């Protein structure tokens, strides 16, 4: 990168400051903010209802339960933003599309988790119920549901939290709410207002984190989702009734097809997506290692670890797609913006996880290295790094898996790869082509998820990643 180029990047970045905090604009931003929260509530309510029904269906072994379970597992592999694009095409731009996308994605997620929960329930009480000659459905309703009510609530609250995070970003493709507002300000080159929206977004995520903690302690608070969802259903009522238009649009996507010239470009697109995922993970690792070490409270004094932790939180609070939007407007479209976006968010996530890994290593060998009079960096190289290498590898592998999904997502906002091709096809109303790209994305993500989980269980690395 030449000096001139760097200068222009700097000039562009400066246009993002200071944020527009005028009362007038803040008031205007309230509407999309409310839309986002309502959309998440509506989507998750639908998801919990459908998830419960399918979960019980699968657990009771009613007709077609295997097919339903397979369908749930595979729908979960479509990246949320890809679903968002599909829904925007079908029901039109606005929060109804966002809500629908969330409802589909989380129905699959919740349905799968609930069926797994039910299937792992204690068999003893179930058998005694079966002995009374009860039908399979009533065994499920009167046996499984009460047995698992606590887990249902705790998983429900966890999914709500991630649904709100997700509702922030489906807006980026026209799903309504704060995401749509953000894209609007950036497209209008109104960068100072974009900063305002990003700050609002960070604040919203912080509020959600707090609420999620409350809900985890008192899962009954989850019922507050009903009034919020009612608002969403009422607001999105008219557009949801435009069924005939939706069906004809959806029919226009079938069968998926790629013209010859798009087929020729496909390997390049796939390579670009892989580049974004691998490059983003690699640079996230490069950034996460020193920052994670600096954030480890056992390694650095508080006056270093505390501020570094704040930096990591800030990097992580901004979703990949928002980093992507900013970067595309600063350095232009292309995979570079995607790589940097994934690297920035990933540095925040990996940095924190690495810091935890460094804090959890055995103390005795560290003390023995410190006792030789080693300098801090030598202690890091001779003790912290080798002792934490296994958890570091697990976290990095999970990040790579996650980043394959994220790479298709950031493409949508102009960061290259298959995601960008998908978005371009949508913008040009090439719906059959778009459907083909969605199918390809689906296959890639499902394959990587499957390969990664197989690899992990083979290696015995089953640590969960929240």
């Amino acid at each position, binding site marked *: 990168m030449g000096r001139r180029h760097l200068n222009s990047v700097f000039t562009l970045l400066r246009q993002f400051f200071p944020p527009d905090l005028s009362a007038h604009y803040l008031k205007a931003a309230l509407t999309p903010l409310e839309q986002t929260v309502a959309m998440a509530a509506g989507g998750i309510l639908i998801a919990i209802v459908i998830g419960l029904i399918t979960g019980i269906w699968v657990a009771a072994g009613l007709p077609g339960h295997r097919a339903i379970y397979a369908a749930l597992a595979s729908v979960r592999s479509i990246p949320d933003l890809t679903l968002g694009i599909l829904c925007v095409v079908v029901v039109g731009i606005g929060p109804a599309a966002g809500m629908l996308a969330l409802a589909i994605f989380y129905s699959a997620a919740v349905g799968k988790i609930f069926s797994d929960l039910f299937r792992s329930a204690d068999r003893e009480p179930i058998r005694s119920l079966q002995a009374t000659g009860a039908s399979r459905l009533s065994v499920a309703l009167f046996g499984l549901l009460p047995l698992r009510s606590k887990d249902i609530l705790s998983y429900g609250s966890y999914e709500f939290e991630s649904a709100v995070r997700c509702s922030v970003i489906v807006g980026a493709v026209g799903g309504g709410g704060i995401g749509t507002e953000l894209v609007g300000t950036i497209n209008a080159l109104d960068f100072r207002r974009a900063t305002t929206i990003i700050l609002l977004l960070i604040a919203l995520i912080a509020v959600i984190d707090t609420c999620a903690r409350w809900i985890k302690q008192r899962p009954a608070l989850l019922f507050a989702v009903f009034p919020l969802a009612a608002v969403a259903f009422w607001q999105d009522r008219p557009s949801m009734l435009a069924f005939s238009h939706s069906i004809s649009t959806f029919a226009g996507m079938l069968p998926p097809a790629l013209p010859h010239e798009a087929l020729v470009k496909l390997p390049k697109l796939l390579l670009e997506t892989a580049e974004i995922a691998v490059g983003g993970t690699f640079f996230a690792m490069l950034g996460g290692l020193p920052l994670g070490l600096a954030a480890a409270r056992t390694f650095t004094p508080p006056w270093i670890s505390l501020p570094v932790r704040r930096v990591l939180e800030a990097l992580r609070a901004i979703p990949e797609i928002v980093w992507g939007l900013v970067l595309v407007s600063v350095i232009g479209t292309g995979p570079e913006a995607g790589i940097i976006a994934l690297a920035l968010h990933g540095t925040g996530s990996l940095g924190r996880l690495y810091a935890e890994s460094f804090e959890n290593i055995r103390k005795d*060998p560290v003390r*023995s290295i*410190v*006792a*030789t*009079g080693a300098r801090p960096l030598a202690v890091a*190289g*001779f003790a912290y790094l*080798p002792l934490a290498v296994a958890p570091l590898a697990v976290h990095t592998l999970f990040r790579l898996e996650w980043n394959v999904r994220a790479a298709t997502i950031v493409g949508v906002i102009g960061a290259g790869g298959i995601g960008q091709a998908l978005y371009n096809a949508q913008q040009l109303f090439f719906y059959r082509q778009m459907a083909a790209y969605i199918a390809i994305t689906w296959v890639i993500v499902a394959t990587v998820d499957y390969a990664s989980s197989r690899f992990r269980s083979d290696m015995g690395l089953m640590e969960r990643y929240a």
Partner: protein
Amino acid sequence: MPAGDYSLEISDLVVRYGQNTVLNGLSCAIRRGERVAILGASGAGKTSFLRAINGFVPAASGKILVDGIDVSKTRGRALREFRSRIGVISQRHDLVDNLRVHQNVMAGALGRWSSWRALRFLIWPLPEELEAARSALRRVGLEHKLRARTSSLSGGEHQRVAIARALVQDPVLMLADEPVASLDPALSQQTLELLCRLAEESGVTLLCTLHQPHLAEHYFERIIEMRGGEIVRERTGAGRLDALEIFPAWGEGI
């Protein structure tokens, strides 16, 4: 820096963990090159005593002088230099498993090396650095394990590598915290004999906590008994190393 005949001078040392007093006004002076065993039940304060000497546990009051240097007055670079002359061997598990043997051994040189040299050595060890590791391993009879995985070592080999690391430090004082606690009786004798012989050869002061009185009497010139954070008894051991060549060679398969 010469500071009289004493390698270690401790006066009225008090160490507390919160409300709990673990060392209660402990005083002793240890001559240069002396081999001292510290006996006592678990919880007598032996480990805290050793950890106070190289500054891992702060003294609430009292004074610790190693070669005339007061630990409590050293910070940062000075503390690192101070620690670099004190070799430490503990029960077990104080080597870094994911490093190779030569890396663990040369960790003893970290007090003299720059950060850059330390990191470079991990990736690209120079021939002379490997030679230094090899000669330290030769002294503990493990030359053939130079590049072995640390996790592949047996219990006795593990402790000998820890001794080699302490030798690389070129120490004035060696602190051994129950170095044979996880070894069987025969290996315990071999390991202690090696440790004491090396200390005698290089004129290093050795302070070693133990559980077994008979081992203390065999190998050490002086025995300190601790109870409740205080020294309750001192006596003289035999310390006749040359007379105790019970195990002439390192046993196979022990």
